[in-house]
């Protein structure tokens, strides 16, 4: 589904990402872990064609993401607040996205009703601009927006951060469901080793822009990860 070739990004001579080769298969749930500054977000931004790579490229369905925009139509993503139009209310934002995805009002209502629990009655119909929501609620809006239009690929940066424990667990369940029912290819970065091992079947450790480990999740993965990060 996603294929990375000789991808590298340099800022004034310092290489922040260098991934010679990486493939994410259809329906695979791919977890990216690493300390601050490991290059996780930069990597995701290059997947979404938000940063021009210094060299190499990212292919989505065998097409380079910076040569065609086809990927946009089957990829849902949420990296940070700049993905939100913060002067709209959440309702307006969802309406707008619904029009992009060709949803009718009924489709949109059906879609949003799935997330009633997640929203906890704090988001819809509240006459509050997105910029005035708490970080956690902003994140909820972004994640739900990314799920709109039945994407085939989902890219989330730190989806668990800023969320309350209940929502973290709900999100985990939701992501697992999506993987099983819809064969969704997921790319998730997280600092929460616990969550990421539960959601992802494959974990890659990034450090200083380079892949240090590429493991299939098993019983011992969490322990391995903890060990890896303790040693440092």
């Amino acid at each position: 589904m996603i294929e990375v070739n000789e991808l590298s990004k340099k800022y004034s001579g310092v290489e922040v990402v260098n991934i010679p080769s990486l493939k994410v298969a259809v329906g695979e749930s791919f977890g990216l872990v690493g300390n601050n500054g490991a290059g996780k977000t930069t990597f995701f931004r290059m997947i979404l064609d938000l940063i021009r790579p210094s060299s190499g490229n990212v292919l989505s369905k065998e097409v380079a993401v910076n040569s065609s925009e086809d990927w946009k139509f089957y990829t849902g993503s949420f990296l940070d607040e700049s993905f939100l139009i913060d002067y709209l209310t959440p309702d307006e934002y969802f309406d707008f996205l619904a029009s992009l995805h060709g949803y009718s009002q009924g489709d949109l209502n059906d879609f949003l009703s799935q997330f009633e629990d997640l929203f906890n009655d704090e988001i819809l119909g509240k006459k509050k601009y997105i910029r005035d929501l708490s970080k956690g609620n902003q994140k909820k809006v972004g994640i739900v927006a990314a799920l709109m239009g039945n994407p085939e690929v989902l890219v989330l940066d730190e989806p668990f951060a800023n969320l309350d424990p209940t929502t973290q667990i709900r999100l985990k369940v939701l992501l697992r469901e999506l993987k099983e029912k819809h064969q969704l290819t997921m790319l998730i970065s997280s600092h929460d080793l616990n969550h990421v091992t539960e959601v992802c079947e494959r974990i890659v450790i990034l450090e200083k822009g380079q892949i240090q480990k590429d493991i299939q999740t098993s019983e011992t993965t969490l322990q391995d990860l903890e060990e890896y990060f303790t040693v440092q």
Partner: protein
Amino acid sequence: MVRELLSHGYKNFSRSPIWGKNLVVNIILGLLAIYMLSMMLVFGVFLLEVVEQVAPNSEPKKVINGIILYYFGVEFLMRFFLQNTPVLFIEPYLHLPLKKGRIIHFMLRKSFLSAFNLFALFLFLPFAVKHLLPDVGAAGALGWIGALLGLVIFNHYFGLYFKKKINEIPNLIFILLGSMIALWALDYFQLVQFSEVSAWFMNQFISQPVLAVIPVVLGLGFYQANYQFLRNNTYPEEISAKKASSKIRGDFGFLKKFGRSGELIAVELKLILRHKRPRNTLILSGLFLAYGLFFYPNESYQEMEWVFLFLGVFITGLFFINHGQFMLSWQGGHFDFILTQKVNIKEYLESKYWMFVASCSIAFIISLAYAFFGWKIALINLCAFLFNVGIGIPIVMRMSMFNPKKINLNRGATFNYEGVGAAQWLMVFPVLIAPYVLYAPFLIMGYELVGILLVGVAGLVGFLFHKKVLTVLTEALKSKRHKISAGFRAQ
């Protein structure tokens, strides 16, 4: 789709925190804009008559045709400094299932709805309809109007393109300045008369209306160039105006010697130097030091010496008036931080006080140069300075605690009325009028000098009691701190 994007643009504008809060200021600005535009329109309608008045022995039409090239030159410069493509607007759309091309086309077309593009039409279109149409016929007038429109389009998109290029090639600005100076010199020394060139060009469009296509095509060409440029560079980190500055401004290590107050002042100076809006107020205060040059050498003002006290207060105190009125607002974003740190409120206010005193002292020392226009000016400035230090600063500090509003430091400075509330408008009065309360009675009775000295002495007394005054201010801030910090948080 376009409708949705347009509504987003409107919402972005109308919901911007800079706008919404201050209805009165918005209305005043709106009226001002309407006034300006209608003045331009009126000016445009009577352009020919105005030219006849100003230059009675010329052919007004030739003069107007001669102005046009200059007009567009000046307009280009204005656009260069004031006009911006809202490239950041597209950032939240980039990851959505929307073709980049559509957003860029939308953005470029929308940018054309700019007041700048109205100026030329308001100024010159009435002239074309009123005078050219009857004189040269429909075809000629249409050619002329077409050329005018073409020039507007050209100036608009060329300006945008030029600004983008300048980010890539910073030296372009020198090329621009150099060529401007060169053109001006050519004109000034009458080597090339651009008014002749301009008149000749505009006449070509009248005699050969088809030629009007040329500026239009040129303008559209630059539209396309803009499109291509943006299409190839739609990466937020490349187009974003908020480039990470590699330069860290200011160190102020020497202030550490002055203990905690010094440290706090150093932090405040960093706040000023690293953000556009407070930096602008600082620069403005510096520029206003020269304000006296408008008054002191002027004979007619020498007659009305009573203005000089006002000038003295203004020149020596502009920084604390400008910056001090937002004393707490500047730090609205981290006021909680200040309250929770190991700084007691008295120290905090002391640091502010001494910073303002230092700013006044620097301004006063520089203003001593005005003694060139008479020793009395120096004396007045000294008294005004003392008054500022002893009374003006505490007044401003106290008034800044009156319901302060948070200022978002990362926003631009032009037309930014964030943090401006009723107190800010009222503040000017006590600071500028209080010295006159002491001065005016003596002035009227003829003991002018006594009045001036009294102002100075009052200031000196205030300064001698500054510890007491700071204690009072501390009590005031202590009792209001919860309300103030809640206010900052709510915004």
